[in-house]
């Protein structure tokens, strides 16, 4: 009892202390021996003593205990801080049931009371916050739910309207025609506004999700190029596409990416005067693909530049182009880009045109299903009820192969072993004859097709994942980032030859899914040297062999070449490297009471020499888990 921080004591019927523990005595400023035999009046200040005696007497007379009663002790309150004591008094009885005294416990609960006070303040705020979140969700869902109701009367108006306008209901005179044209323009305008509202509320709603597939960026963009070129030509604007030599794969929602690019190109066409020029450029970065839409129009005034992605902001067009929407185009595009995990930003100066950039995550693998695998799947589907496909893809296989110490054939043989063992462990009835195993050594893919669906499949995938990871670790592959991602494809993206209900696909990626180099969180000050000898100081957010992410107060220009001096903290060396600005992201931080705007800037290292690379790799390894 002497080790308990609470005061514990026993008193007899006369109120004399028969026992008190160390803490209790300490609280009175005495030793336990000094307290024994004394009463409250001897050891406590008078007012307090009277209170305590009253409590004890009450407990003794009634036989009822006082449990955890909290009292504020004013005499002991320091300025600004309240002192609270919790009192527990329990009557003690002898074997005949006669009361022989009390046992008391006293505890300092000031901290507890402080916490309870804070919590009382916080609970209503939390409730409000939850309510707001719920309202936002409900609003979004509400708008989506009524979208059908909104569209229907609009469609009817348009329909009936057209019947008058195209003279199905009889001839119309010129005056009537003119009125109808104006009315129709406004119907279109209304339609456009409603579509934008519905779209953004859908994107922000609970149920929104992207439907991913793997697309080749160059092909994808060039597909719609003729249409845009024609559209631009109507205004005598030249539209040029600047593409990288090789095509690059991205893992995105094609419909939404089309929406993004359409919006940006349409804007460029809208805001560029006749005989102007627009360039759509695609740049392949180390872990992203960056698309730029550049024009030589009037540019965006500085004060509008930061607001341009905000809702309901409409920038004046200069040449009086009619406003169609309500300023939701760019916010929608921004929401979509960010849902993909990309960044979007703009660089512009009045009189010097505008450059809109956005990035999308890059994917290092090629087409998913080879013809060999497809035929096998079709054969199985003809015989069985349902089929599952687990596809293991070694991402960035070319690069991966160079770093491996193992012969590729052996690698796939080993993986085969791992997969079949995992199969036996996951499925009770899995046997060699049940599954079809196809390897595509050229592209680094291993496919397993088996005739069971769903239930055990996640276990199967997990086992494969774990064991393949261990296998790679055992074979000490240090620099390669091992992220076994798991992605599920709906069979539509396989170009539906298969009966959608019976076919399940799971993909496992070995290697870097979206990043070529593993990034670690890294915080250090760096000095950035720009072209004209300007220096600026920035903080790093993360670091990898490929580059660094900086936090700065002012933006850097896209593709700008900079020099960086980075101190590597653990190995205690500094390196001075060259880099190029890959992407820029403007962040508004309105948390708490601060109103901070800052920039996150992705810089790719260009020309690291062998020694620097080694130092960087050494430093990074110390941060890997």
């Amino acid at each position, binding site marked *: 009892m002497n080790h308990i921080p609470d005061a514990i004591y026993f008193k007899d019927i006369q109120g004399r202390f028969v026992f008190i523990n160390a803490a209790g005595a300490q609280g009175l400023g005495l030793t336990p021996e000094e307290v024994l035999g004394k009463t409250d009046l001897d050891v406590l200040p008078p007012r307090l003593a009277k209170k305590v005696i009253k409590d004890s007497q009450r407990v003794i007379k009634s036989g009822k205990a006082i449990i955890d009663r909290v009292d504020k002790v004013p005499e002991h309150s320091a300025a600004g801080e309240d002192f609270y004591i919790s009192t527990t008094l329990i009557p003690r009885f002898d074997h005949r049931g006669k009361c022989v005294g009390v046992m008391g416990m006293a505890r300092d609960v000031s901290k507890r009371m402080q916490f309870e006070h804070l919590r009382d303040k916080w609970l209503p705020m939390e409730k409000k916050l939850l309510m707001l979140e719920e309202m936002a969700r409900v609003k979004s869902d509400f708008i989506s739910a009524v*979208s*059908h109701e909104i*569209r*229907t009367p*609009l*469609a*009817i108006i*348009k*329909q*009936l309207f*057209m*019947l008058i306008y*195209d003279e*199905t*209901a009889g001839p119309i005179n010129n005056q009537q025609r003119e009125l109808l044209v104006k009315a129709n323009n406004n119907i279109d305008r209304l*339609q456009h506004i409603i579509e934008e509202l519905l779209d953004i509320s859908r994107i922000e709603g609970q149920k929104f999700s992207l*439907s991913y597939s793997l697309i080749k960026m160059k092909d994808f963009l060039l597909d719609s190029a003729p249409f845009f070129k024609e559209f631009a030509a109507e205004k005598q604007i030249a539209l040029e596409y600047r593409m990288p030599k090789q095509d690059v794969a991205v893992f995105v929602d094609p*419909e939404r990416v089309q929406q993004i690019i359409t919006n940006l190109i349409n804007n460029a066409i809208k805001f560029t005067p006749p005989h102007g020029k627009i360039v759509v450029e695609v740049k392949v970065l180390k872990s992203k693909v960056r698309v730029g839409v550049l024009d030589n129009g009037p540019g965006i005034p500085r004060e509008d530049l930061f607001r341009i992605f905000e809702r309901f902001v409409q920038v004046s067009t200069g040449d009086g182009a009619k406003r169609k929407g309500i300023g939701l185009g760019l916010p929608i595009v921004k929401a979509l880009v960010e849902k993909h995990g990309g960044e979007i930003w703009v660089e512009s100066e009045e009189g010097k045109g505008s450059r809109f950039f956005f990035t999308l995550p890059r994917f290092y693998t090629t087409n998913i299903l080879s013809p060999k695998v497809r035929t096998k799947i079709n054969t199985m589907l003809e015989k069985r009820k349902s089929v599952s496909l687990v596809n293991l893809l070694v991402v960035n296989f070319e690069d991966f192969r160079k770093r491996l110490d193992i012969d590729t054939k052996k690698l796939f043989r080993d993986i085969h072993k791992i997969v079949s063992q995992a199969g036996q462990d996951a499925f009770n009835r899995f046997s060699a004859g049940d599954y079809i195993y196809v390897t595509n050594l050229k592209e680094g893919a291993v496919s397993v097709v088996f005739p069971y669906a769903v239930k055990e499949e996640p276990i199967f995938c997990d086992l494969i994942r774990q064991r393949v990871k261990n296998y790679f670790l055992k074979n000490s592959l240090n620099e390669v980032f091992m992220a076994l991602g798991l992605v599920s494809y709906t069979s*539509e993206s396989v170009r539906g030859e298969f009966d*959608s209900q019976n076919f399940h696909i799971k993909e496992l990626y070995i290697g870097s899914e979206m990043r070529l180099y593993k990034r670690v969180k890294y915080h250090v000050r760096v000095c950035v040297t720009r072209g004209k000898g300007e220096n600026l100081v920035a903080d790093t957010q993360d670091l990898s062999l490929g580059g660094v992410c900086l936090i700065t107060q002012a933006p850097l220009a896209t593709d700008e070449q900079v020099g960086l001096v980075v101190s590597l903290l653990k190995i205690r060396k500094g390196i001075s490297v060259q880099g190029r600005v890959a992407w820029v992201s403007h962040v508004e931080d309105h948390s708490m009471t601060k109103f901070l705007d800052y920039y996150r800037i992705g810089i790719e290292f260009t020309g690291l020499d062998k020694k620097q690379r080694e130092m960087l790799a050494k430093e990074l390894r110390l941060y890997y888990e």
Partner: protein
Amino acid sequence: MSKKVLIVDDEQDMVFGLRMMFESNNFEVMVAFDGQEALNIARQSKPDIMILDLMLPKVDGYRVCRMLKFDEKYRKIPIVILTARTSAEEMKIGMDVGADAYIVKPFDQQVLMDKVKALLKQSGSSAL
């Protein structure tokens, strides 16, 4: 001989407009305002083409389409789904139940008529 079109939509004004449009293109027009009526008329009068809305009382558009398309006697009737629902999944379901075309409201009259004519041509009837 003029072609018969069965227009199915629970919005009366919509039906009114579509009727006018088809009649001015020399179609004979039949209408239904709910799914059950649509099935009855389709089975009795075998139209040359159907314009089908999805949100219908009694039996919804998907089921009407599916039931006709899965029936040997009526599956040859081309069905154009005309609806305000736009999501990709819904479009896919439309295709899955066997619709021959899926057009979103608000629609362009010309686009609809062109599609109708193309489908009639396909199903062996001569276009107008």
